[in-house]
């Protein structure tokens, strides 16, 4: 390529390409092939194994700052459960969670024609952490006497079917800290033999993988990547899949640029050596 010096590529070319490869998957999701990792696959299968009509619990222990990673998990789980005709009871040990869960429940309930109080219930937030978890082991209605809207649980048909964890086929905990998955595993899973699944941020996930190994968690979604895999499995690619598309392509693009830069670098070095020119001043790395 005469007259075109790779070393002098205007960085605006790089910027434009980055801009395009981030925006494009958002506009046109391309669903790059993505391997589903075993913890996600197991979670999906665990939900599939729950007989229709059973009750599952969605325990959301997160706050708005981790929404980009965790909200797609909540949405996919609710979609998965509604599609399989499972009934959902949601609880929260974090004060900020109930409105976020509500954000996911409302549109999906409309989409699947589910009725509040019959097919799903948002029990809202209860302070106390571990104490609340143990209280639920004895009696869920006594621990959450009202739902998120202040309605006594006695007035909700779904809650008449629920006494304690014996009536819950599976618990999905979405957590970004403490109290969260660790407490659910230690206080609830071991004591009441609950089938427990979890979704956490990428930063928080590593210590929980051993729980999947030991079977204390039936599955685990780690970060945006876990969320994206789950979205693929429930066949409803959303924010997470789009985000992962962009991530993959940007990473590949940067690697491509690095390789390109090195090709140019060696070509130039060879040319210089041929000319016998002095070595150029290099930046120190």
């Amino acid at each position, binding site marked *: 390529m005469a007259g075109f010096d790779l070393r002098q590529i205007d960085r605006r070319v790089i910027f434009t390409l980055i801009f395009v490869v981030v925006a494009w998957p958002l506009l046109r999701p391309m669903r790059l092939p993505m*391997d589903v990792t075993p913890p996600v696959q197991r979670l999906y299968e665990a939900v599939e194994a729950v007989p229709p009509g059973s009750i599952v619990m969605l325990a959301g222990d997160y706050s708005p700052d981790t929404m980009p990673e965790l909200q797609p998990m909540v949405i996919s789980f609710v979609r998965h459960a509604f599609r399989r005709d499972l009934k959902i009871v949601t609880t929260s040990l974090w004060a900020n969670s109930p409105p976020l869960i509500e954000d996911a429940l409302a549109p999906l309930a409309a989409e699947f024609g589910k009725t509040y109080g019959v097919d799903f219930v948002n029990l809202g937030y209860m302070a106390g952490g571990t104490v609340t978890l143990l209280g639920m082991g004895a009696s869920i209605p006594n621990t959450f006497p009202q739902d998120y809207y202040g309605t006594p649980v006695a007035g909700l048909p779904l809650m008449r079917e629920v006494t304690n964890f014996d009536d819950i086929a599976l618990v999905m905990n979405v957590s970004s800290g403490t109290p969260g998955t660790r407490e659910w595993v230690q206080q609830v899973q071991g004591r009441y033999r609950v089938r427990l699944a979890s979704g956490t941020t990428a930063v928080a996930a590593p210590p929980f993988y051993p729980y999947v190994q030991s079977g204390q968690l039936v599955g685990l979604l780690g970060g945006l990547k876990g969320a994206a895999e789950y979205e693929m499995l429930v066949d409803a690619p959303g924010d997470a899949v789009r985000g992962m598309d962009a*991530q993959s392509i940007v990473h590949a693009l940067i690697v491509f640029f690095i390789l390109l830069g090195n090709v140019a670098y060696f070509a130039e070095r060879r040319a210089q050596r041929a000319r016998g020119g002095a070595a150029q001043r290099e930046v120190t790395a």
Partner: protein
Amino acid sequence: MRREIPLAITFLAGMFMLVDFFVPHHRVSAAGEELKQWGTIVIAASILLGIGNLIRVHSKKIARRQSGWGFSLVCLSVMAVMLWFGMWPGAKLGPNPLVGSIAQGSYFNWMYLNMDVPLQGTMFSLLAFFIASAAYRAFRLRSPEASLLLISAIVVMLGRVPLGQLLTKGLPEKATLPWLTEAIMTYPNMAAFRGILMGAALGVMAMGLRIILGIERSYLGGEK
């Protein structure tokens, strides 16, 4: 004397806080807390020093009609508006509860959410572009060390996304990019950072001691 008093104060304050670490007695701890609180207030009270500097530099520009003085005008006026919305003392008497308050829904909050937050967030996100341009121009195989930097960066970059998983699919587990990423982050990365941290810690302590003992004093400025 003008030099000695501040140095004596520095010494006393420094020694007290140092000793406080080893003495659990609650009165000593309480005094330490009080001193820290004082520090916070001194810093908070200092903000006008900076704002004063900002006002001086920009109003000079405006007064002399230097190039870009219009932007200086934008800066100063928006600051004044922010102050007015945030602290207008007559607000409680006035008809508009959105002024003189920093609560959710107030004008102050609105300006913060729709100007400060997006502007700063976008400036932060410029890093996505710069990280690419920096990698392009600086990651060259020009020396063994530079090659290590380059290779470990590429491995980790790819190992973190599904693409990396696909690229090394079918290989034994310990040759896959995600596994290598994990290994690099856990071993060389940790060893190096631990070493740098320990070295820097010794630097901090030596510097702190020099400050307390008054050997290092240039930050206090001139004699006058």
